[in-house]
């Protein structure tokens, strides 16, 4: 069975979700529930720390995409941080950097919330 986990922390005003393991069709619902819980608790400034991710499938990509507009509509954003190169390739293959902001580290991702107007996608640094 796929190993996957999400842990929560804060960096400034941002809620950080640290993702670990394989984000696939089996584990994507867990990630979706975690993002939905953040939004339900009023945390719309979200950093997805992908430094521990080993794989992402289309199901995982779909969760990122589905949660983007709800986060922006609530005045926040979902910023993706610290993706390993091999995982970033999948995001890149489908053009996700055109829509999402990416940052090299979770700290730099959290700092973006202070730099860019919420709700507006901005160009971020790819890993």
């Amino acid at each position, binding site marked *: *069975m*796929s*190993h996957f986990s999400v842990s929560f922390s804060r960096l400034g005003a941002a809620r950080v979700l640290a993702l670990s393991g*394989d984000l*696939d*069709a*089996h584990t994507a619902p867990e990630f979706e529930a975690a993002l939905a819980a953040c939004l339900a608790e009023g945390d719309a400034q979200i950093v997805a720390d992908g430094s521990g991710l080993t*794989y992402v*499938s*289309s*199901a995982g*990509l*779909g*969760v990122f*995409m*589905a949660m*983007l*507009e709800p986060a922006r509509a609530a005045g926040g954003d979902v910023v993706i941080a610290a993706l390993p190169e*091999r995982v970033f*390739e*999948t995001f890149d*293959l*489908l*053009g*996700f950097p*055109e*829509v999402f902001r990416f940052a090299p580290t979770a700290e730099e991702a959290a700092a973006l919330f202070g730099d860019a107007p919420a709700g507006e996608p901005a160009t971020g640094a790819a890993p």
Partner: protein
Amino acid sequence: MPLGTLRLAGRTAELSRLRRAVEAWAGVCGLSDAAARRLVQATDEAAANAIEHGMEDPTHGRIVVSARRDGDGLTIHVRYRGPRFDPTTAPAPGPAEALQARAKHGYGLLLIRRLVAHVGYAYRRGVNEVRLTARRDG
């Protein structure tokens, strides 16, 4: 030359086992790391599609995945019983359209079509067969 066969239950929990098997077959065939990674992902997407949308009976049915050395590469065959579904022609939004629409679904087909050197399809007696071919240096 056949390399191996894996039979999976119609549950997404089986997908990690599938990925490990394809990775091992790719290693036996001498695929580059990049080619292996892409083939693993394409196979995972094809099997996930079958489990979530395609299988006639996910509870009792099986997905049969087999690997065959194919010239300078490796072909993975994904077979399951269900309504005809051809991933080579099924409508799917382009990446730009999907991104514009903030679509939650539809990326699997896009990935399958982009990740491997060749995608083939056949439908015989109620069984879908998706063939995914990676070249050694692809």
